[in-house]
């Protein structure tokens, strides 16, 4: 678990008192936020708190705006989000759906996930991407740690912290050599900060990487299990290694071979195409 920001449990307790909630326990920490399990009227929620900096505030606001506009079973539900001042410090507070089933990363860590569940996860999330595309949103950080389970098999895409709104100015600086995203799951256009190529097909690549990893047991671009090699191959737009390609085809996941193409134009063009290919229709 990432160390994240400092312990904010005391502030979480204050917030809970103000809202008439009970603080149950800390859930964990991300790069910017700490999450706590809270309960109100018998229902459980995730309370997330982040110290606000000038550079982070627009991102928090975008995340909230993006999630507020979404209504899809595989997209995390946001109940509230606001900025609050405590002493001299400003915090971003959000109350989200609590997802008790853990992350896909945890499931991968304890063993392979069955192919039928992988397919089901893929279809649910591809449908979520369709929903996001309709809203001009690109998640940009799909990875096993951001895929949570509501029940044993119902997945939810979370952490829209670096969501890109295609109809709003980009918050990423042009001069940076690499755009936002987790490098191990990022597409070439993210790794190379080619903002003009970012669209829903970027998320398609990230999701396909996650799914292919679940099928193969290794990162699709590095059968040698070398993460740096995987990132380098993706960034150089090298083709999918034959071992991964063959493995996916033999496992009847050839839809992922296309989804892992290095250029967006070579991937599935529309979410419906991806869903149809993934379902074998």
């Amino acid at each position: 678990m990432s160390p994240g920001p400092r312990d904010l449990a005391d502030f979480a307790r204050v917030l809970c008192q103000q809202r008439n909630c009970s603080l149950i326990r800390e859930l964990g920490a991300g790069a910017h936020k700490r999450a706590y399990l809270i309960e109100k009227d018998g229902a459980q929620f995730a309370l997330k708190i982040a110290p606000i900096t000038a550079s982070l505030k627009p991102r928090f606001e975008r995340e909230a705006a993006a999630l507020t506009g979404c209504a899809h079973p595989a997209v995390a539900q946001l109940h509230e989000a606001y900025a609050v001042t405590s002493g001299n410090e400003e915090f971003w507070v959000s109350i989200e759906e609590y997802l008790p089933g853990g992350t896909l990363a945890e499931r991968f860590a304890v063993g392979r996930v069955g192919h039928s569940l992988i397919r089901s996860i893929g279809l649910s999330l591809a449908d979520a991407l369709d929903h996001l595309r309709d809203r001009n949103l690109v998640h940009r950080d799909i990875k096993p740690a951001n895929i949570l389970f509501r029940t044993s098999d119902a997945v939810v895409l979370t952490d829209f912290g670096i969501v890109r709104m295609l109809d709003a100015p980009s918050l990423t600086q042009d001069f940076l050599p690499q755009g936002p995203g987790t490098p191990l799951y990022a597409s070439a256009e993210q790794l190379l900060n080619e903002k003009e190529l970012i669209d829903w097909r970027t998320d398609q690549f990230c999701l396909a990487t996650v799914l292919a990893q679940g099928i193969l047991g290794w990162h699709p671009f590095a059968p040698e299990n070398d993460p740096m090699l995987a990132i380098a191959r993706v960034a150089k737009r090298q083709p999918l290694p034959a071992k991964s390609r063959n493995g996916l085809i033999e496992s009847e996941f050839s839809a992922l071979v296309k989804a892992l193409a290095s250029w967006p134009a070579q991937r599935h063009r529309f979410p419906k195409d991806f869903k149809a290919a993934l379902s074998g229709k």
Partner: protein
Amino acid sequence: MSSYHQMGHDSWNLVTEAALSSFGGLVLSPVNDSPGQVSEKLAILGPRRDHLDIILDPQFYKPKSDRGSLTDWLHIDNNFDTADLANMGWWTERCHRLAEQGEQLGVNAIASPAAIPRAFDAAYYDWVIECAEALQSLLDGQKTSALITALVHVPELAQQGTADRIASILTRSRISRVYLVFVDEGAPRTQRTDSEALAGAMSLIRTLESAGSRVLLAFSGLDMLIWKFAGATDVATGKFFNLRRFVPGRWDDPAEGGRVLPYWTDNDFIAWFREEDVRLLLRLGLLDRKRASANPYSREILALLDGRSGEPWLRLGWRQYMYWFAQREAEIGTGNVDVRDMLEHTDQLWLDLEKRRVRLFERPNNGEWIRAWLNALLLL
């Protein structure tokens, strides 16, 4: 799959020519006809109209000089010269007018407005998509659809990744038809010979088509053969495209005049020959009279040349070319002709010509583009 008439000066008579009936569509030119004239001409087509896919190309890329009939059209007005072309609102207004104009004419589709940019970069193609989407949103629910007009600078396609980058931006759109205009600075009647750039151009077509876009390659000529090889569904040409192709200054040339010479379109050499060369090749037995006569207009031209009457055959030359274009397009489209085999055969013919020390009237007419095209096929 179809050939389209790229309408130019005084081209309407070709549309109703019986031997050219295999053309499946028209790309209207606002430069050459006013809306009223177009409306009249479309009405005259009668039942043939129902079998044609009629596309309005607004031609915003026309240079500032002589505008022909452009200013008679709703989408061009007096503020064109002073407009802030960076303002999307101005272009959206053009789209409104285009949609209205298209509805009045009853066209099947409208090519989105597109200016010739200073730089063919990602920002330009983003703008192209935005403009096309704005037009499509106005046409939603109507019978008329929009095409994305994309101008692409051919020399830049030699750089690896450029075609994929452009295709990636263009396929972001929900619009499934692309009106692709290849731009360069080539001289009239010269063929493109940069194999790498040509391979990039073909790759762009192939990637777009593979992604579900239907490409209409505008302003094509003999090079239609390689665009079809790459997978272009539709290709457009006009009678003047045996003389020139799309270059930024193309409208600055006189549309017609005394200096326009007739050219023979040769199916075997994949070249345009002047009369002197046709006579020379006939005398040397290097031009297959029988094979050439499969084109009815070639037959007529040969009869005129044999008669030595001196009768001009410019009009026949245009028709000969247009017939060749539509026939070849159909043959490639149906898989009856293998482009690579055809080019290899042609390369041999040019080699024979060289061995026999034949010097054609126009020096650039040496067939070297055939090798470049063959290499482009290899690089694809």
